[in-house]
């Protein structure tokens, strides 16, 4: 299998010489096509910085990020925007749906800004809505639908452009447990039936247990890696808990 994402020795420093913060300190890993990878870590561990660097919102200090064979650390300005628009899909914790647009329009806008033909847009939106079970709320506005539905609309928006990589930042963070489960099942659908590559940042062990592989980050470094393999989700979940206890940032700090 080919690598969709290759991260090679990236570093990200903040501040100046006298007061240097290493948000990311030499991280390298690969994500294969069709993989569902989770990134876990306590707040301040550098996981959001990592995501920002991958999503081209932030720039790395050193190292290379290669997405689908393209080194995005070398892209600039217009190309960067184009790349982000066409090759990446985003799902955010707070949905980031436009409150003035209907669900349909919120999904469609991802395509309209890519100047896709209108007939195709209509077809695609309906197709994806069918898959994510949101056909009957397409005409509704975000304020008329539940958090889980909102996040599924956001997921539809992220996948509809057929991106190489979907980046999800705490997607279940604002959801109740039932909606969270539904959403994660949606992710599984995206992953399995649409062969979407998903990189999900979370600090919730339950959400993480849906991933195939989990990278644990602490103080800007990869601390551990867990692969689901043949485990059931329950077994995987228990392993995650174990690592977290081991990682136990909070507890260590107390001692």
């Amino acid at each position, binding site marked *: 299998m080919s690598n969709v994402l290759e991260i090679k020795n990236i570093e990200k420093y903040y501040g100046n010489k006298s007061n240097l913060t290493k948000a990311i300190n030499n991280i390298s890993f690969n994500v294969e096509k069709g993989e569902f990878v989770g990134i876990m870590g306590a707040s301040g561990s550098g996981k959001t910085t990592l995501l920002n660097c991958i999503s081209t919102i932030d720039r790395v200090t050193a190292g290379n990020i290669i997405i689908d064979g393209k080194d995005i650390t070398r892209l600039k300005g*217009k190309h960067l*925007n*184009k790349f*982000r*628009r*066409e090759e*990446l899909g*985003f799902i*955010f914790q707070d949905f*980031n*749906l*436009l*409150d*003035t*647009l209907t669900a349909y*329009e919120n999904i*469609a*806008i*991802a*395509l*309209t*800004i*890519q*100047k896709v033909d*209108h*007939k195709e*847009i*209509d077809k695609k939106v309906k197709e994806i809505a069918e898959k994510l079970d949101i056909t009957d709320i397409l005409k509704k*506005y975000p*304020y008329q639908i539940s958090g889980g539905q909102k996040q599924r609309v956001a997921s539809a*928006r992220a996948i509809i452009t057929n991106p190489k990589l979907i980046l999800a930042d705490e997607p279940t963070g604002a959801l109740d447990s039932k909606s969270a489960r539904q959403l994660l099942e949606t992710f599984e659908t995206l992953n399995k039936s649409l062969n979407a590559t998903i990189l999900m940042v979370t600090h919730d062990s339950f959400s993480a247990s849906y991933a195939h592989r989990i990278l644990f980050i602490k103080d800007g470094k990869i601390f551990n890696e867990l692969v689901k393999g043949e485990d059931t989700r329950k077994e995987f979940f228990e392993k995650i808990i174990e690592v977290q206890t081991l990682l136990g940032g909070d507890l260590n700090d107390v001692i």
Partner: protein
Amino acid sequence: MLFKLSLKNMKKSFKDYAIYFLTLVLGVAIFYMFNSIDSQQAMLEVSSSTRDLIKLMISLLGFVSVFIAIVLGFLIVYANNFLINRRKREFGIYMTLGMGRRQISKIILIETIIVGILSLIVGIVIGIFGSQFMSVLVAKLFEADMTEFTFVFSIDSCIKTCVYFAIMFVAVMIFNTITISRYKLINLLNANKKNEEIKIKNPVISVIIFIISAIVLGIAYYLVTGGMNKLESDEQLLVPILMGIVGTVGVFWSLSGFILKLIQSRKKLYLSGTNMFVLRQLNNKINTTVVSMTVICLMLFMTISVLSSSLSIQTSMDAELEEMTPVDLNLYKTANLPESYKNPYTGKVTNYTKEQIEDSKESISYTLESNGYDMNNLKDIVEISVYSIPGWTWEKSLGDYFETAKQQFKSLNYDTLEPIIKVSDYNKLARLYGIKEYSIENDDEYIVLCDFESMVSLRNHELNKGGIIEINGKEYHSKYDSCQEGFYLMSTSHTNTGIILVSDNFELKEEWKEQEFLAANYNANTEEEKEKMNLVFTEDDSIFYKNINDKDIKLEGMTKISIIEASKGLTSMIIFIAIYLGIIFLIASSAILALKQLTESSDNKQRYTILRKIGCDEKMINKALFRQIFIFFMLPLIVAIIHSIFGIKFILTVSAVVASTDELLPSVIITVITIGIIYGLYFWATYSGSKRIIKNES
């Protein structure tokens, strides 16, 4: 310390201040310009009688200025309020740091003072230069000699401007202190998090309302133009005005929904780029701004109508004035004065002296000569007599239509006797005036000359049927089936309510003679000489004037020079005040629109951030923002322009001005430029301000 903080704040939020500053500077400049008229050079050059009018105008402008100051005051408070709201969070942080409300008020106070002083200085400097241009305009209006140009600075106006604006700033300060004292820390810190609930209208209802509003506006338009004859009283004029307002509100309430529905049905357009987003933005925002949009639109409407119609009225009045004042002098006096006369309305009895009675039997040239007037001053003298036949009144002329006319115009004196002139007499005059001559072949024919429009329409009803009239047992009829063009008294415009021309063979008795009339030109080659000769009739202390005054002879008349001065003065005065008000209205509406947009831009920041997150680049975002603001600025303007087309037509019809396209064009161009500059400035300030707001904290 606080001073330093204030200065830093100002530097930091300079662009936020842009609209506020712009409004202040424009306000100050306009205020200075219009209040400095009296000391402008053009004023020093105009003639004395015009100067009296200008004095009147200046005192009028004083009153208007108070009104304008109130409008500007509100505007400044509003603009300032926007700034304070923008900075709620900043103040919240100061408060958490332990700063008291009093200290925050002090910071704002210092800022207000600095901005105030700065804008006063800049505004007055612009005003000083602007008033030089105004001077040229004034010169054109009052026909002053502007060959020498001197730079004028009006201290009075400067002081007045400073005082008025100082008062406004004090109001702003008081207002700010009150606002600050009401703030709660929690609200200040969370100021950015407040979310407005959005209401979405049913698009079908929008379409229906839009169509209804369009029809209402259409009817209103018809009423003030084509159907104007149906408007008989002032109160009825309220109907189209109310319809116009209701229609405008309706249009703004439904327009965005209507457009949305329209474009949604065209998928290709709707599902393209950020169109969808921009349209939804409009739809969302226009709902919350129906009232302000309507107010802005109506203000713009007034500005456009007032500016362009007042200028074109001026132009066409000039033309009419030229037409209606063909000679230098008209004189007339009552003929055949009785020994005593009892006013039928007041019951007052006037006794006439022997001298008066004797003089009234003589011609005007006799009066002139016998009272020491040098007849060499005059040339092209034409003298005629005007008669009136007992019983030949307006009522009689109107015939069967009298009853209807009386209901329509209750206040007319229908027992006014018709002035009657022999056709050959009139032709002598017409030849001098260079207007149309008439002929009457049959002795039982007469001709009605009338150019006052509403009177023409009354008279034509009877003339249409032949105008058969019985006078002293003989029957007469009109030669034409309608009123003809013509006049004998000079005036500022077409105001001849009716003269009747009769055949030279018509037996006019000597005692029917009502008026002696003389028309002549001054025997002079240059304007200066003419002006000198004119003084004999206008100055109270001329020998001739004294002589006839001693005998109490009432010789009335008008001179071309005095008619032109009076007319110019009056129209210019109206135009001046109209332009003043128009520009202030324009500033007010642009500023409100701009501030409204900026406030919304900060609310919209999040939406644009989302767009950026899902992959829109800056270019697309700026384009979307530009289109959004552009449409917001254009909508009220376009509706206002449509209103104005009919409004201007109405004004021109009411003021009885027939303006051709050629005459209208220059004034329309001037209006467009004025609006373009002011509106454009605000648009630019809004766009760049919004762009900055949206970029922040992305």
